[in-house]
């Protein structure tokens, strides 16, 4: 089949699942900012990882060339996605794997539950996966009577604490060591009451807790970091060995992966395996990477499935300005450098994908009008640190601005009464469209001085302008505007100024 589009264009079909801000970002952020412990934990963790990342990135003389290659490869994948998916499907199936396609979260959940049920098992072990977090797989499996055990240390902490992940790489980044020790003591059966809060001791407790599960599990569920179209190979990048345990020991392996994770071929892996570890954990290489191509007789799972997930990715792809958000390799470098994420934490974003990438990806996947997701593109100062850190050069600030315009357009004409912003903008448009009008408005400056009072400060503005004065004062305006000062000052010396101008032009 040709990859050229021949049919009628269809409307984008958006995704569902754990992709929504249930309350607006400013509201959620305001609440999270009240948690001083959270801010301290996040500040410590994000600064640690920033330093590590900078150190290992500066070691590579060709970092920028790798970023350029990574960006171009992903752009090429998006342009050729239909043909690459068909090529991947043929190769994965040829290698003995089975492919399932899921339009949305609900369909993916049903497929996975059906596959687990077919094995007769009621327990699965899980490798950390953003895709399964996005579709809410654990919750669905639980409803179906299937227990899913998270095996990544941070996911385990979050699961034991009945909490939600707040970071895509280190889901428990909002917890410090003492809080984690307390969770283990409270929730981990048989935890040593003498458990200390030394990270190494806590890691050992997790090892002991999960060992029996790994050695007896019959079914595992994973995500995938990369899929190679020309061979049908899947890759999982990890640190602890929990990934290897899940990918190697069980009889059945079910992988859930977004359709955008494809890479054309083997040669492309050399680019991404240099970009990803240094950008995510700030290591030269992560401890373990597993690659498998369908089924290998006598080695690893003999029953290998892959669920290919759309869930709004095709809708994101349809947005020409926003589609590069799908280039994301989930390294988390953007959140680690973000001044907003560093203070609010991941929960404020509501979605599985927090931080700068989440602020664009979530509304692109769900549509800007879904729940409170229209507030996410504003969760940024547009400082651009995320763009600098992104290993595949996603221009997050540009997409944030684009989505703000999509948001404004989507609301246009829907409100009966103009908002304060509308009125303010109208007024500004009138005043700024001619010098005369501006001069007229500036005659009102003394009014501002009056409002500032004897201490020469305006401490509280009314309406939406109140946001500005919430945490800072405005100095009293000058008694005269610059334009009026210029007019009086230069009236007398007009002739002289003209001479200067002529000389300048001759030079």
């Amino acid at each position, binding site marked *: 089949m040709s990859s050229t*589009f021949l*049919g009628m264009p*269809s409307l984008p079909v958006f995704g569902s699942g754990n992709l929504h801000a249930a309350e607006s970002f400013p509201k959620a952020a305001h609440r999270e900012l009240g948690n001083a412990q959270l801010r301290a*934990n996040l500040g*410590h*963790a994000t600064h640690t990882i920033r330093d*590590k990342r900078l150190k290992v990135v500066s070691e590579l*003389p*060709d970092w920028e*060339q790798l970023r350029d*290659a990574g960006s*171009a490869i992903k*752009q*090429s994948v998006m*342009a050729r*996605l239909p043909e690459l*998916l068909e090529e991947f499907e043929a190769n994965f199936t040829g290698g003995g794997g089975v492919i399932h*396609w899921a339009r949305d979260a609900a369909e993916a959940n049903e497929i996975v539950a059906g596959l687990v049920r077919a094995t007769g098992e009621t327990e699965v072990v899980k490798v950390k996966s953003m895709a399964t977090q996005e579709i809410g797989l654990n919750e669905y499996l639980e409803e179906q009577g299937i227990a899913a055990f998270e095996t990544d240390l941070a996911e385990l*902490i979050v699961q034991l604490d009945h909490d939600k992940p707040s970071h895509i790489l*280190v889901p*428990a980044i909002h917890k*410090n*060591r003492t809080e*984690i020790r307390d969770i283990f003591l409270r929730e981990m059966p048989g935890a040593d009451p003498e458990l200390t809060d030394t*990270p190494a001791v806590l*890691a050992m407790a997790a090892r002991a807790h999960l060992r029996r599960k790994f050695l007896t599990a019959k079914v595992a569920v994973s995500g995938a970091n990369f899929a*190679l179209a020309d061979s*049908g*190979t899947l890759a999982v990048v990890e*640190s*602890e*060995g*929990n990934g290897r345990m899940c*990918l*190697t*020991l069980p009889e059945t392996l079910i992988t859930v992966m977004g359709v955008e994770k494809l890479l054309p071929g*083997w040669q492309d*892996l050399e*680019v991404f*395996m*240099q970009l990803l*570890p240094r950008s995510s*954990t700030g*290591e*030269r*290489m992560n*401890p*373990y*990477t*597993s*690659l498998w*191509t369908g089924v*290998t007789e*006598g*080695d690893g799972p003999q029953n290998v499935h892959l669920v*290919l997930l759309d869930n709004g990715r*095709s*809708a994101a792809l*349809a947005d020409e300005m926003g*589609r590069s958000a799908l280039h994301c390799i989930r390294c988390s470098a953007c959140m680690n450098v973000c001044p907003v994420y560093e203070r609010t934490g991941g929960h404020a974003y509501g979605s599985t994908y927090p931080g700068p990438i989440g602020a664009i990806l979530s509304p692109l996947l769900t549509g800007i009008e879904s729940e409170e997701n229209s507030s996410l593109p504003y969760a940024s100062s547009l400082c651009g640190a995320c763009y600098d850190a992104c290993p595949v050069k996603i221009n997050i600030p540009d997409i944030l601005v684009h989505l703000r315009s999509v948001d404004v357009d989507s609301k246009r004409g829907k409100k009966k009464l103009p908002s304060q912003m509308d009125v303010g903008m109208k007024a500004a448009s009138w005043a700024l469209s001619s010098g005369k009008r501006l001069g007229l408005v500036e005659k009102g400056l003394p009014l501002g001085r009056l409002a500032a009072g004897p201490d020469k400060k305006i401490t509280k503005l009314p309406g939406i302008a109140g946001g500005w004065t919430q945490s800072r004062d405005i100095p009293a305006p000058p008694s005269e505007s610059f334009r009026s000062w210029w007019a009086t000052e230069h009236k007398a010396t007009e002739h002289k100024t003209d001479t200067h101008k002529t000389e300048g032009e001759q030079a």
Partner: protein
Amino acid sequence: MSARDDILARIRSALQDTPEAPEIPRGYRQDSGLGEDELVELLVDRLIDYKAQVVVVPEAELPATLAGLLAGASSVVVPEGLDGGWLAGFDDGDVRVDSAAAPLAVTELDAVDAVVTASAVAVAETGTIILDGSPNQGRRAISLVPDHHLCVVRAADIAGILPEALRRIEGTRPLTMISGPSATSDIELERVEGVHGPRRLDVVITR
């Protein structure tokens, strides 16, 4: 319409502006240009940084070196294709041979003290060793479940950087890339060695 056809149709529709697939600029390094001595030195440095134990020995001393590193172990598992002479110094120990045709059970692997394997290729710059499931490296499970992994790397198999290493291996084999003992950074982003994979990694480089 099947989900497959539906999704492919959605994607084609999303790409109706027919975006261009750019040429891939591959201006990044393709090789390190390092000689064997430098490669060995770099790999040793990187492995030590990961808290792996590393020794460099002439091939003739390999059996004695392995025996020394296995001090205290009473049982060891080896893949069927491992050079029989390598464990000549481990006379009094219990050596189990694993193969795809006669695999050891997971509980048996859990009970042995150590595993000895060869390796396919290593990457000096990142301190990475790649196993490709060849007969002298065995099934993926054997280098995972035992708590102590002894891995032999021939100096000739050390590549400088990742692109060189990946050119030397077949991507469709079951592959495991190992960079140090298992580790986690999940608590306050501080790296801690030793979680679910082998907590002790000894690398023996032969030349």
